[in-house]
């Protein structure tokens, strides 16, 4: 996983509630056995028409937002299916930070596993960043994870929360599995105790 320390880029506005993972990456693109190459199908049914041509009105098809690195969107982003293809497709497109009033739990977790920073902010802060984002390529935003700060195009600064352990893993690009395997003794001990107290769980 790539480290995440600071990120500067264009923020794209997607002012919709309850954007579900079927919208982010429709199921016909889940048939891959790879993690890569999904960016071209990100938001497929909103981004392309039945002939595969771009729908000009969709935000990521507009010249100012084609290289967006940040998405500003509505509440409950990422609801629905657990498909990690959703963060994979966002990442492959180039999105590394999503700002919304709230996120669905599984999607929120999946983002951190892939070096995407989901930031939940009060509605009024999201509204402000949404207005900034609607200004297009002039609206460059900087995210500083260490300081937990978002700096807008006018220099205004918004603080955000992130859990310390997740922040630590993101800043250092740490692999969860490697960290957990360092706790092998604790896991072995737990399993030994469980085999005695709940022997019916062994198969």
């Amino acid at each position, binding site marked *: 996983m790539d480290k995440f320390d600071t990120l500067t880029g264009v923020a794209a506005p997607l*002012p*919709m*509630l*309850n954007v*579900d993972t*079927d*919208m982010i990456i*429709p*199921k*016909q693109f*889940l*048939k*891959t*056995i*790879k*993690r890569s190459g999904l960016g071209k199908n990100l938001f497929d*049914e909103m981004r392309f028409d*039945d002939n595969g041509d771009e729908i000009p009105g969709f935000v990521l098809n507009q010249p100012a937002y084609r290289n967006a690195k940040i998405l500003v969107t*509505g*509440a*409950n982003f990422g*609801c*629905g*299916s*657990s*498909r*990690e293809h959703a*963060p994979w497709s966002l990442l492959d497109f180039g999105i590394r930070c999503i700002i919304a009033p*709230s*996120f*669905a*739990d*599984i999607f929120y*977790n*999946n983002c951190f*596993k*892939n070096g995407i920073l989901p930031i939940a902010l009060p509605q009024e802060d999201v509204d402000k960043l949404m207005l900034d984002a609607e200004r297009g390529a002039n609206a460059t935003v900087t995210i500083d994870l260490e300081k937990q700060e978002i700096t807008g195009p006018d220099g205004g600064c918004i603080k955000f929360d992130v*859990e*310390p*352990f997740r922040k630590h893993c993101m800043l250092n690009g740490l692999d*969860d*599995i490697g*960290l*957990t*395997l360092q*706790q092998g003794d*604790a*896991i072995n001990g*737990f*399993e030994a105790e*469980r085999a005695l107290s*709940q*022997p*019916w*769980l*062994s*198969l």
Partner: protein
Amino acid sequence: MGNPKTLFDKIWASHVINTQDDGTCLIYIDRHLVHEVTSPQAFEGLRNAGRKVRHPELTLAVPDHNVPTTDRSQGIKEEDSRIQVDTLDQNARDTGIHYFPMNDLRQGIVHIVGPEEGFTLPGVTMVCGDSHTSTHGAFGALAFGIGTSEVEHVLATQTLVQKPAKNMLVKVEGDLHPGVTAKDITLAIIGRIGTAGGTGFVIEYAGSAIRALSMEGRMTVCNMAIEGGARAGLIAPDEKTFDYIKGRPMAPKGAAYEQAVEYWKTLPTDDGAHYDKVVELDANDIIPQVTWGTSPEDVAPISAVVPGPDDVTDAGKKKAITRSLEYMGLVAGTPLEEVKIDRVFIGSCTNGRIEDLRAAAVVAKGRKVAASVNAMVVPGSGLVKEQAEAEGLDQIFLEAGFEWREPGCSMCLAMNPDRLEPGERCASTSNRNFEGRQGRGGRTHLLSPAMAVAAAVTGYLTDVRKLEIV
């Protein structure tokens, strides 16, 4: 005795291996379910890192999303689907996890297979790379969906890094009216709390209406916890739970079963335990539910009319309703019973169990699917299909003009050839009415199996209680 604990608190506490300063825990995972869509990258990750599956015997895999529901003797026609299923075959062989291949009688939707096999047990932690893992909460198992990175983590370590959820109690008291089912309860709850109402919570469902449900009905309720935003639903295990589990192939047997039951009886929430949020519904108030929009929270009683943007004040919601109605091709104020449908889908991990097929067959018996409607029944597993055929349900469906298919996820998410054409409108017993879920441009109305049959025979969304049961 310490502080009174909820069912969730007890399961959580018994699985924590250690806790960090910020509250992040390493928890043990007792049971892991795997399907072909969300696992290939996890197995690949293990291979690339030279890691092994820590406990292959605690993982059960089955292909379900991509499998055809028509004749399977020729294999899978679509190359990408076939590769995904073949990849699971190979990964299962290489790692020694339990595996039911496509043509095994026990194959089916992963969330139907787990309980059938006795793999799902009270008090366990259980995960799957699939959001509808919440289904298994019906047994008092802490069961939730995870992403593929977490699938890999569980395969490698049999643990997960998690923070505890908050406790929500949803209490449904009273008796259901005839014709009202578990599906109507779970839809009514989502209508009440909203699609994000359970975010950050585990929902425990309780009250006399929940206790009165069969295990199948309880699975339907917990299945859709995720549609209310909660990663897991829970129902306290009781005698019905213990009876359901007894004798199943992977369940404990003999003295081990007796010992397990004694433990399972200690799991229900203690009197006076604290819930962070409590929601109460009266079962008498619930009438058959149907969705009208593109989020499961867009739900109404069948007697209602299609709502419109003027019915809400929030600007974001106004916009969402306007977009929903445009996508769904509906006009605010139209009675739901005047909505004409083209397709009917009965099946899925929400409503593909034997009880669901029985409830559907009761309404279908002696009736005919409307000429304008194409209707299909997809059993949730090979064992459900076999049971239904033993009871003659397949004949009732076939005589009524339904198609009778092979088991799988099918048109719930349309990864196999079962899908809606643009603009087609479907009465569906599945769990998501998202845009494009059942096929690009397809329009989904979620409802119960009995209501789905009522729609099939009349050609319109219909209150099943108006149909005489013969």
